[in-house]
């Protein structure tokens, strides 16, 4: 199935480039490639890009660029994208403790699928995940794709407080809460890594497009 890229405005200061209409690793990889291509040599007036699952949002300054100028420029980038050698994702290991006080929902996730908690740990940590996008709170990585055997719906009632460092799953995605916040994902583990520190340089451990591998700590 080929999806013809679409360029549509989101207001008068952003352009949305749609490269697909589903969540999958290949489409997201194209999004990250286009983002890297634009960020490596941005046009004057382009402020920043925001990669998401299947789209790239380009924020620009309408006092510098007109709608037609930026559209023309983005079209040439789409043409060049297919000639661009895609960048090799950065790989980051995340040490993690599963279950118990670290992951209070591990047992219920296992029970939901008729699995033993050890099976959930093995399946969750056996392959690397791509960071499709970041959002929700500063530094929250949306990663996938989870093995179908452990894909689990969100909690019906979100928790008011999820501690920073908690590793969680929702649907076919997995993520890590970078700061204390409310949350409706199922909590299966915890990492001592600090994902976000506004005072450090750079402030974020991850970037969209990175690959994350969970390493079990006992």
């Amino acid at each position, binding site marked *: 199935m080929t999806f013809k890229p679409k360029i549509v405005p989101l207001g008068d*200061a*952003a352009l949305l480039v749609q490269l697909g209409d*589903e969540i999958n690793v290949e489409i997201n990889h194209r999004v990250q490639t286009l983002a890297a291509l634009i960020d490596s040599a941005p046009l004057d007036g382009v402020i920043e890009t*925001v990669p*998401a*699952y299947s789209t790239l949002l380009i924020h620009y300054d309408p006092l510098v660029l007109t709608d037609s100028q930026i559209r023309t420029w983005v079209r040439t980038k789409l043409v060049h994208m297919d000639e661009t050698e895609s960048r090799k994702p950065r790989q980051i290991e995340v040490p993690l403790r599963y279950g118990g006080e670290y992951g209070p929902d591990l047992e219920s996730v296992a029970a939901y699928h008729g699995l033993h908690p050890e099976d959930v740990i093995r399946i969750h940590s056996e392959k690397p995940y791509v960071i499709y996008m970041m959002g*929700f709170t*500063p530094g929250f990585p*949306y990663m996938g794709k989870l093995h179908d055997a452990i894909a689990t719906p969100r909690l019906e009632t979100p928790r008011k407080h999820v501690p920073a460092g908690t590793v969680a799953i929702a649907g076919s995605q997995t993520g890590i809460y970078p700061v204390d916040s409310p949350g409706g994902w199922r909590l299966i583990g915890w990492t001592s890594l600090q994902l976000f520190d*506004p005072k450090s340089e750079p402030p974020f451990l991850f970037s969209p497009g990175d690959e994350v591998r969970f390493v079990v700590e006992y």
Partner: protein
Amino acid sequence: MSLEVLDASGLATIQDSGRKGWRRFGVPISGPMDIFAFCAANLLAGNPASFAVLEIGLGELTFRALQDCIIAVAGSGYHLSIYLWDFPLWSSFFVRGGWAIHFNKSHDGMWAYLAIAGGVQGRPVIGSQSTCLRGAFGGLEGRRLQAGDRILGGKPSRPLSHLAARTLPVEARPAYRVHPVIDIILGPQTKHFGDESLRTLLSSEYTVSLTSDRMGYRLAGPPLTQRDKTELISEGMTFGAMQVPADGQPIVTMADGPTTGGYPKIGAVASADLPVLAQCMPDKSRIRFRATTVAEAQQKYRTLMNGLENRILNPEYGEW
């Protein structure tokens, strides 16, 4: 030169032109709710338009000047008094050390901007001095101003006597109205809604709900129903994007709003009208929407913002 906060019942924060380049990590752009009044306050004080200022909203504020200084105030929703006198907004003022500066709520808007000649000084966090309340960083320890805080000003661009009593005439300002008509650009998910919903949006009156804040303005009015119920995959968002959740009541993303979102967007507010929307009052303003094109919206924004500095009246050369 510096200001001391004597009393702060409202929401006052330090804001510069915003945190650019970090939205891909989920960091909101922050910055001013009303970009026009923000730029005007800076220019009136002789600063570059992007300098850090104090944004004042939702309550009363009192400052005391600790030394002689120039301040400029622009925006809406406040009566300004300095020492013993009342003054109109959209002007710059010479303030003697020891004088008090009061912001008392009026009922014609939401946000006012106090610029100090030389700019509010502070350490940038993630590339900006803007306060991100939700992330608790930037500005003054990531929080709203409170009594006892000291705001440090930088070095003015010109001698103080050259910066006082400057004004921005009303014809150079946006068409602020209590009951405004706001331009929106339709898309990208307009097709998720039926033609009837589109007609509803463009022919009805909406109010701003009381639960609105720097993150988003929740609108209340006739609901917009979705024809296409397929769940949208989350994508990037902008300041001004109008999302419609399942209850059909639109939410306009504002300065501290999320960088991505999964609700369909029926449109986005034109940049030139965002300041007007930002100044709309909860439960009071009745807002109508009109569809415009990207090209028209950009032209209107350029007309509003370009050459703003040249429209400032100086007492030496102006009508004074």
